[in-house]
């Protein structure tokens, strides 16, 4: 079965290699695209087959490793594949969403110039390789390596429109922030090696080191999975083409952080203080992101903050002590958030702008897109029978079990807000009077609608596949209807939808929002912090160091040169060129020589 799992790594790698080296093929446009799409689809099929044959929780993992780093003759780090209950489902999610997005991109990116299209699909294949490599990583080192490669792909894909200055800044910002967080991750991996002598995912021995390693690893998670202080790069990442946002910045890449915690669960399990911190950070992120999403005008920004909020959910779930809740929510969220982004993409494709205020009444023009978007929105809001309801309630339930009442309340509030802002988007975009732009909107071609349909299907059905996520008990679907948090969440969701519909659908309740606060949140206060940190902190420090090096350290070195030159010039005066001075010098020299010798001896 392991060979099947290797397909999603080697096939796209081959595709990337071919596209990278044979530039005529890359410049050929559609053939290159189809090659990449084919390899993505094949990888998806292989992943699903591998998942069916994969060992269920408890069974030994199938794996294959080659030694990579060596230390005094012994190998200290291997590279390879490890297929088990945790990695198999994630592989399916990744490859499935990637395949859908690639097919979707055929339509969405059709009008791009040929070489750019080739480049786009090449990097997409590289992303699949990196993501699969990370999912199947047998040890923490390969996980870290692929984690960084995923960051590289995000940098490349965000900066796809490299001639747009804003895209360039966004791409660089993404890397800076994520790598800043990766300082923690790398230190964690190094500490892991130092304490355990290897890179395995579990840590025997005292829990002190485990706590520290877990905390450091969590720093990396906060960066990649956009937890509150370090989430500033995610909204800017929307500069990339929408399929990229769908694949990377919604479904898979941002979830890497969560998957890291799941993958290295034995370490985190042995570090309770880190877990409690995670619940709080997750909850806070969920709430803050939800509030910010409320006030955004750009449809993609709304979805970005919504992703940020859902990631908060997953992290909070992980913090409760069982990784299943987070993991399950991750998978369901991947499907419906990818769906939402693709739908948003076809909306943008239709009206040509991201600004919600210029949209309206698209339901009539783009029925299918509207229908799929609304389905996704409902799943996100947590309306049964869609998968969102099941996974979100599982999270709330776990929070309840872990007696984390504070985070529970915050998450409930966030759930309500989520429903509210999704409905706001639906009303502003699809319902209400048609704006100038939406008049000449037209439905997206089938090649875009087909993957959205597939994702819609999985978003609906995913709720029922609880059994295959590395957990031992399969929960019956109806189990949630009865629990208290489940009911509370449902009520809040319906309330949110109603309120939002009344405000934006029918224009009542005008006094609800506080425009000043909305404007302040939109301005991105946290982002401002980072920018100021760079402009007043790091850059001036570099300036000072540069100045010190050129004028002080280098100055001191030049001082010697200067002293030598000036000193020797001044000494030239001694050599007067007059014969009598020379004779005098000679005689006095002789006298000193003789005196020193003659008198010196006597003492």
């Amino acid at each position, binding site marked *: 079965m392991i060979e099947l799992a290797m397909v999603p790594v080697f096939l796209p790698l081959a595709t990337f290699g071919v596209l990278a080296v044979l530039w005529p093929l890359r410049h050929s446009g559609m053939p290159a695209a189809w090659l990449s799409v084919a390899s993505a689809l094949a990888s998806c099929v292989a992943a699903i087959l591998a998942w069916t044959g994969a060992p269920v929780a408890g069974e030994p993992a199938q794996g294959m490793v080659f030694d990579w780093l060596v*230390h005094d003759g012994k190998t200290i780090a291997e590279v390879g594949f490890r297929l088990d209950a945790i990695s198999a489902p994630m592989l399916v999610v990744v490859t499935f969403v990637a395949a859908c997005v690639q097919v979707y991109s055929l339509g969405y990116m059709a009008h791009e110039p040929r070489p750019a299209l080739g480049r786009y699909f090449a990097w997409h294949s590289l992303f699949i390789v990196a993501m699969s490599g990370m999912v199947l990583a047998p040890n923490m080192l390969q996980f870290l390596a692929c984690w960084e490669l995923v960051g590289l792909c995000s940098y490349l894909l965000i900066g796809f429109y490299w001639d747009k200055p804003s895209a360039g800044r966004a791409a660089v910002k993404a890397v800076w922030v994520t790598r800043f967080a990766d300082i923690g991750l790398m230190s964690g991996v190094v500490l892991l090696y130092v304490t355990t002598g290897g890179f395995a995912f579990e840590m025997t021995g005292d829990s002190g080191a485990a706590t520290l390693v877990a905390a450091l690893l969590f720093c990396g998670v906060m960066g990649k999975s956009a937890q509150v202080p370090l989430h500033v790069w995610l909204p800017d990442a929307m500069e990339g083409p929408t399929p990229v946002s769908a694949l990377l910045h919604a479904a898979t890449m941002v979830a890497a952080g969560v998957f890291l915690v799941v993958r290295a669960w034995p370490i985190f399990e042995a570090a309770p203080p880190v877990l409690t911190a995670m619940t709080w950070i997750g909850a806070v992120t969920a709430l803050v992101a939800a509030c910010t999403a409320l006030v955004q005008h750009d449809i993609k920004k709304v979805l970005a903050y919504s992703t940020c909020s859902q990631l908060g959910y997953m992290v909070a779930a992980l913090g409760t002590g069982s990784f299943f809740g987070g993991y399950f929510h991750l998978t369901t969220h991947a499907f419906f958030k990818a769906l939402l982004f693709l739908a948003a993409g076809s909306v943008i494709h239709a009206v040509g702008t991201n600004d919600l205020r210029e949209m309206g009444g698209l339901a009539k023009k783009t029925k299918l897109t509207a229908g799929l978007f609304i389905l996704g929105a409902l799943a996100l809001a947590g309306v049964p029978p869609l998968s969102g309801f099941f996974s979100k309630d599982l999270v709330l339930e776990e929070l309840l079990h872990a007696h984390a009442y504070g985070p529970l309340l915050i998450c409930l509030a966030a759930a309500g807000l989520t429903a509210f802002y999704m409905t706001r988007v639906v009303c502003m975009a699809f319902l209400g009077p048609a704006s100038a732009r939406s008049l000449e909107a037209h439905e997206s071609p089938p090649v875009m609608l087909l993957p959205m349909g597939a994702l819609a299907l999985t978003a609906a059905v995913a709720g029922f596949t609880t059994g295959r996520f590395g957990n031992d008990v399969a929960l019956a679907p109806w189990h949630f209807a009865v629990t208290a948090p489940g009911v509370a969440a449902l009520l809040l969701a319906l309330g949110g939808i109603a309120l939002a519909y009344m405000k934006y659908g029918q224009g009542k309740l005008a006094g609800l929002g506080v425009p000043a606060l909305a404007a302040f949140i939109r301005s991105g206060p946290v982002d401002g912090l980072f920018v100021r940190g760079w402009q007043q902190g790091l850059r001036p420090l570099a300036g000072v*160091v540069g100045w010190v090096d050129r004028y002080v350290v280098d*100055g001191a070195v030049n001082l010697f040169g200067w002293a030598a030159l000036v000193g020797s010039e001044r000494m030239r005066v001694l050599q007067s060129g007059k014969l009598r001075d020379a004779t005098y010098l000679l005689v006095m020299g002789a006298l000193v020589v003789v005196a020193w010798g003659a008198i010196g001896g006597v003492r």
Partner: protein
Amino acid sequence: MPWLSITVLAPLLAAAILLLVPSSSRGTTRVLSAAASLVSLWGAIEVSLAYNLHEGGLQLRETLPLVPSLGINWDLAVDGWGVSLLLLTGLILFAGVFATWTLDDRDKDFYILLLTLVAGVLGVFVSLDLFVFFLFYEIAVLPMYLLIGIWGSTKKIEIKGPFAFALRRLDVGGREYAAMKLTLMLLIGSAFILVGIFALYQGGGARDFGMLHLAEHPLSREAQLWVFPALWLGFGSLAGVFPFHTWSPDGHASAPTAVSMLHAGVLMKLGAFGVMRVGMVLCPEGAVAWAPIVGAVAVINVVYGALGAMSQTDLKYVIAYSSVSHMGVVMLGAATLDTDGWNGAVFQMFAHGLMTGLFFALVGLVYGRAHDREIFRMGGFAKAMPGVAVFFTLAGLSSLGMPGFAGFIAEFLVFLGAWRSGNVVWALAGIVGAWVTAVYVLRAVRAIFWGEGPPERYHHLSDAKGTEWVALVLLGGCLIVFGCWPRLVLDAIDVGTSMHLPVVLQAVKPELAL
């Protein structure tokens, strides 16, 4: 087949023959230099193939008495480290020769000096006799003066700061200034090395300069306490150790492409190699006593170099400062006295050599076409030169430690070594340094290559042509190959480390029990 002598002497022989070739015939000059570099590269490859990893230790030994009465003999042998660094030099030389294919004024002299320089470098990596080691070291340092002096470029530096009078008197920024400063600082370093060598020689009974002989008769602890710093400062000045690094920015910024490729790519490694192979292996107790200070200075190097690079707006200065920072990582690795640390240090020499070689080749191309090095005046170059943009990004990613490239392996091993040998602060500083590197490298890539089209003042920008691709593809390819399959070189380096480190660790005092 005495491969080592062939590899070392091929460039010298070619230089000698070039002397006789009339300078008018450009073709023969190029073919001859390319042939010489090919022979060296081929020799390096032969050596690495012939080197038997299981056996380890010193192999392919060639000895010939040179001045028996003083105990000096032409004693070449290669250990694990020598193999990898020989390979690096061969690669960089081959790329360097092709990078200056289009040079036209006085190209014959250029190639003669370049080949002499490389012969010096090759000689140092493989010579066992300290005297011959020093002899090659001097040969490697001196051609730089003429190379920078004749083909270098001048950059106006604003004169200010507390020592403005000194700067004004020495016409800072000029190419003669840079050439002279570089040569003098390195020669002052070699003065200290000479003193160190003579101390070792006397300690070994003043009979033989061979390193093996000297290793058997180590100096007393008190003597080692001052001999090691002498060797460290001497070699360190070439490796860009903090207070003596100031020649590096000016030297590399003024040097022509191939020269800075070779200098930053290979010559700085000479310094670090010297510190480890001569300094640490022959003065173990000195090395152990001074390791914390060497490490602390290396940390300054890393962070100071990275911040320095960030403050620069001239492309060549950015790369030069980044070399100082990366060489700091090498010295950090060396100071850890840990297997991973040393493996990482030597691998970093290898990886950084490739990276900087590629960087300076690219900078040469960009400067050759745009005749400007101010990165914030450029923009959108990717439209005109996509190939250069791709390889520049590739080199940048490797320098910021992106996995899949050689840079990551080296830095990761160094951080492992640092943390394991108890200097956590060094490791953290190194990791932060890597992040700062990411900041200024990506900023440079964006400033030069991304954005709308190139500003109108750069009219005839074109992508790399013909032979220029050789350097890019060769070095870029190596970065990826050695990044994905590090064992190709790491095995040899590990063999070298496991041969030398125990010698140093024997001198470890109990309190530093590993």
